């Protein structure tokens, strides 16, 4: 299946040979690059089959899909295929939905990017072995609690009469209130509970990266009289920065894709004005509906994707200029 491709790859790798800095064994270079492409091949094929092939289905965003006629035979939507996009952007609450989505995602990105780094740096400084292990195990345990239960706990902790949150508020002289009905608190509760659940989990990647930091650097720094904070700042932080930047860029690219499940479960009638986001709306018109509108949902999804990709490319561009770290 890959014969013509193979020769392509070989020829396309030829110019590289001339530019390469390693010139000692030019005859080996050809095979060397070939083997790299071979390593890459299975994943490329996989991604093509399971990710790119289904993308053909996106065409239904421009159609009035019905399953009887199928993806390709269904009639085109009105307005040259753009009817569903038009319907979405002209919704009376379109801007509210977009704004709500952005509020949640910007807040999440800010905290979810910075705090795991701080946590990882601190865990890395713990010098008592058993304590370090305990902290880490505890910190990552909440990740395994299903969203349904987390949200259930939020409701029960926020209970007007017996909830622990309200008990604390009352203990400090505040007035009890229905916290889950508060439009002001919605984003806070969403982000804070997300941090409780994910902080330790997200920190793992940094803890792992930190363990690879060259200890000679630390020793040299100690000899130079650098304190702990200084060494964290000058050695540990730079070591995990490229990773952090990449993860930050990726989250920028997910700006409009706030997952629906948790928000949906957290919604109360009283917070709908701030809690209805793109993904919950998509859920309502597709999976959550007795009459799923696949085309409409696909159109909103595509709208999302396009904006996300624009954001991603921009963020990547900026990052490449500023930090030399980039996705491509």
């Amino acid at each position, binding site marked *: 299946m890959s014969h013509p491709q193979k020769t392509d790859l070989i020829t396309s790798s030829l110019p590289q040979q001339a530019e390469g800095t390693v010139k000692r064994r030019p005859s080996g270079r050809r095979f060397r690059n070939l083997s790299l492409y071979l390593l890459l091949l*299975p994943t490329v094929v996989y991604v093509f089959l399971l990710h790119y092939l289904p993308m053909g289905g996106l065409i239904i965003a421009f159609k*009035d899909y*019905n399953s*009887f006629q199928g993806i390709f035979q269904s009639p085109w939507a009105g307005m040259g295929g753009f009817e569903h996009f038009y319907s979405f952007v002209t919704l009376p609450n379109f801007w509210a939905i977009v704004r709500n989505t952005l509020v949640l995602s910007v807040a999440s990105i800010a905290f979810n990017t910075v705090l795991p780094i701080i946590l990882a740096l601190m865990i890395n400084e713990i010098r008592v072995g058993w304590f370090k292990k305990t902290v880490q195990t505890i910190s990552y345990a909440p990740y395994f609690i299903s969203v349904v239960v987390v949200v259930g706990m939020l409701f029960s902790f*926020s209970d007007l009469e017996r909830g622990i949150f309200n008990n604390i508020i009352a203990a400090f002289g505040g007035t009890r209130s229905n916290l889950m009905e508060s439009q002001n608190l919605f984003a806070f509760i969403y982000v804070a509970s997300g941090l409780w659940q994910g902080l330790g989990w997200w920190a793992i990647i940094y803890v792992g990266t930190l363990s690879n930091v060259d200890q000679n650097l630390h020793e040299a720094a100690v000899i130079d009289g650098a304190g702990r904070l200084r060494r964290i700042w000058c050695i540990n932080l730079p070591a995990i920065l490229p990773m952090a930047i990449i993860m930050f860029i990726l989250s920028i690219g997910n700006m409009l894709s706030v997952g629906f499940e948790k928000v949906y479960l957290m919604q109360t009638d009283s917070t709908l004005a701030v809690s209805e986001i793109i993904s919950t709306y998509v859920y309502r018109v597709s*999976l959550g509906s007795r009459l*799923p509108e696949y085309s409409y949902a696909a159109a909103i999804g595509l709208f999302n994707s396009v904006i996300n990709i624009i954001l991603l490319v921009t963020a990547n561009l900026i990052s490449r200029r500023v930090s030399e770290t980039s996705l491509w």
Partner: protein
Amino acid sequence: MKRKILSFLIALVLMAGASAALFGCGGGETYDPDNFLPAGTAENPWQIVKEPVTLDIFVPRGGMNPPYREMKMFQKLSELTNLNFNFIEAEVSTYDNLRSTTWEDKNNLPDLFLFNNTVAEQVAYSQFGAFVAFNDDELTAGGIHVGNLIENYMPNYRALLDANFNIDTETDAKKVAMLDDGYMYSTLSVNDVPRDLTFKMFINQQWIDNINEDYPDRDLPDADEIATVEQYIEVLRAFKECDPNRNGKNDEVPVTAKSMEYLSNFILAAYGYVSSDVEVKNDGSGLVYTPVTEAYQKYLETVRMMYQEGLLDNQVFSITTDSQMAVKGYAGRLGSFCAAAAYITVGMDLEDQYVTFGPLTSEYYTGEPLQWGFSNFTASGATIPTGTPYVREVARLLDIMYSELGTQLIAYGMEGEDWTWDDEAHTSWTFHVPADWAGTQEEYRATITPNVGTASALYWSYDFVGKMNDPIITDLNRMSERYMPYLKLPVPEELKFANADEYTEVSRLRTNLDLYVRSSVSDFVRNADQTVAEGWQSYVDGMKGYNYERLLGIYEAAYQRYLQGR
């Protein structure tokens, strides 16, 4: 490592090939018309085919059920009819997706879509000839003329249709099943069990008695005598101010609900409408969108007053699950609530304190009391996709499922095995759960029928279901019957929209409007600083922005067609 990848890829290709071969063979069998038995055999009138034939049946599957092939009722049906079943089972949460993908593959359509059919799909796909019409005199299938399935092969179903399933209602069963083109593409799903036709409103009769004993000057009416929303509020006030649960604490919650939606159906009915949606005017002259009516404003004022006075649970907008409501119910703090059955909310210990009451009227609305209800009939029972040769076989199978035997099977299983009559006159029967069964009764019933969990049934018949010998159920039946004379469907079930586009548009408009109404109701009710009247105009303007007028327009057109058809 590379070898592993290679073998993985090879495995992939092989699997694809193997499955293609498998699927490819499926279409090869030829249909033998003479294998079909129009009226069974002398020994077995239920038998449908001489030699066993396998039918592919697409079904919804609830999390509670075992696989369909293990369910007793289908094993029994298979035994009786000599048909074998191959079930394609779709979990409820992904049902619509799987159904869509099933339609995508025209070469492997099932022989029957059992349960969960939608009118929208029938309207949309019948224009392509996707479904077999049950009442088509010219029907051909499997290369032969089979004619009208209902007339020729479904005597039970036909008799029931003619008798409107012996249900005393204005809804015409045949018209529910029939699209505007005069064809019936789906059989009916029928339900005349009162407890499953409406939400019930419970009130604590014990509390009323306690108050009348402890505070004689209050002189509260019994639950049965509460007829107006004003009286109801008086009782709730007494619940709040007195100590009806006699624990010395002011911890009573006069009324609550799992969500406002459930409560609003009940309170709003006292103002003349039963839904926050498009609804038929009580004189039948046309339709209104109730959230913009004056009655809705009055209703909102009442609910706001109840909330601000603390009669309505101030947590009602934070309650999203039954268990949140149950927390107060189990603690003996609830005066009144809306639920399917009281024991779900208050547990078995307190269950007998609560009785149903209503429906109510009000000073504003003094007409006949109204109670929101489900339709007895929905065109959701079973559809046959065009292309299967086995239409007669399927028709006879369905007919058995509508027969007395079938309705019993799908409800509680086989007579003599799963349940037995208590007396000669057949006035009641007892359900038998094996002594060694470790789970609950419902879990056991789930091994017999798909009715548990998905509520799927073709005929959920009160004539049989209502005779179950079970004290709590008998009580619930009795308490549900009071609502039956007052049931109102927001719009007639016979009403059909013109085409698929209208169904889609209605669905989307309602999604948007529903969110706006829910959000606004919460704002009105919780806002202590602004009366309903003050915010009313901007609310109605907002509703216009979401185009309720268009929604009403589509409904009006369909309603006019419906009126002409009557």
